[in-house]
């Protein structure tokens, strides 16, 4: 990491003793009371289902967690000029043989890259290489290129398993806590879902 990133990483892990533990829960933007979406690429660490739709000129990754969605434009367009920062970013993609290659820019710089609290800047560029080595397996190779936060690009990999009989259900971040507050404050504690 660069000094800039080291400082943010330390702040996210102040008091955390075990290097394998998550970052501090009280400053994790995904946890209560912030309840923000995991964002890209942290969405791949959620342990929940993902659904892929292929449509003309686009591929959609629909994530149960959040829920979240990534639109991948495959119609040859370039990135938006100075896209407004977002959780899932601005993503374009193209095919390289049997691999869908995607490039994402325009990510919020206060979201975490993973649950450890690794930071990234708004200059982060994430490349995904999505391929299906066999019928039941999806392999996603990730490349993180962020010169402001990391002295060199680095890679990671995630494997997914096909679940043909599964249905993606609804998952709303922080729903239990939000419900409790709404029930108390608006419904007067007398009624709730």
């Amino acid at each position, binding site marked *: 990491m660069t000094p800039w990133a080291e400082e943010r990483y330390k702040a996210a892990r102040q008091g*955390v003793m075990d290097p*394998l*533990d*998550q970052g501090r*829960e009280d400053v994790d*933007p995904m946890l209560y*009371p*912030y*309840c*923000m*979406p995991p964002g890209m690429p942290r969405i791949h*660490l*959620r*342990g*929940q*289902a*993902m*659904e*892929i*739709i*292929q*449509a*003309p*000129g686009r591929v*959609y990754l*629909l994530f149960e967690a*959040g*829920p*979240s*969605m990534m639109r991948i434009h495959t119609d040859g367009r*370039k990135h*938006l000029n100075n*896209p*407004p920062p*977002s*959780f*899932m970013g601005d993503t374009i993609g193209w*095919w390289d043989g*049997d691999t869908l290659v995607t490039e994402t820019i325009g990510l919020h710089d*206060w979201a975490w890259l993973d*649950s450890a609290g690794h930071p990234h800047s708004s200059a982060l560029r994430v490349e995904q290489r999505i391929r*299906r080595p066999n019928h039941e397996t*999806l392999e996603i190779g990730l490349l993180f290129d962020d010169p402001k936060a990391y002295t060199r690009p680095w890679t990671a990999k995630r*494997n*997914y*398993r096909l*679940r*043909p009989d*599964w249905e*993606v*259900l*609804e998952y*709303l971040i*922080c729903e239990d*806590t*939000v419900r409790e507050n*709404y029930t108390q*404050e*608006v419904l007067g504690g007398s009624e709730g*879902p």
Partner: protein
Amino acid sequence: MGKIVSGFVLALAVSIFSLPGVSQTANAGESKGIPDISGVWDRPGAGNLARISPTGSEALSSSGGGGGYSNFIVDERPSMTAWGKERYDAVRVGLKDYDDQPPDALDHERYCYPRGPTRMFTGGAWPFEIRQMSDVVFLLFERDHWVRRVHMDGRGHPEGYPVTWMGHAIGKYEQPDTLVVDTVLVNDITWIDGLGHPHSEDAHFLERFRRVGHDQLEYTIRVDDPKAYTKPWTGKRMFELMPKSFEIMEHVICEENLEIGATRNPQP
């Protein structure tokens, strides 16, 4: 604190995934039986947000026009039961006109709850995208990036399916130009529209998406909820097809709370 998740195999429920060059999307409009309603649709007259074209050189917006803001256009105002009226009045304290919007403090959305499947079609310039697959139609909303899945494979509503924010939806096509969507099991915290019309968990929503012209989509909703309404009622809204260069942006509900240092649960 928990451990960092690393190296595990995540479950992937794949609706459709194929090798390049082999499209498995429904041949909407290319073969008989599937009306083509795919595309990005937006609402005329709701004061659209400026959009940035892919080249960054132009701002795109939908056209102006009339139309209600928070409500569906109805021929006859919904007739509520005592149960329904009590809940309706509770969120409209102090309001005089039918079209007035309930105060934020009584709106579950201010607590960062989802709008629900039908209110998504009311209020403000919030485009949505329809993508038709062979066995499912996806309604992809800009507002809080919600997804509604409409199962088109002939299944019914399953026994024991939980109540959710968007409900369980099944659909079929009616020739020559209409998608019919049947939705049940919607969380009764949500409102049917932006005016605060309530519904029970037993509500049955029948929505019709009909392409009345190349660039026009007519959305009709029929609400059948004997607990909340003395008889079924219908409402309508029109949507306009956006050009291919129109991009649906990201919207995360309550994001501004984090940006200004507040938490996700604002005080009323």
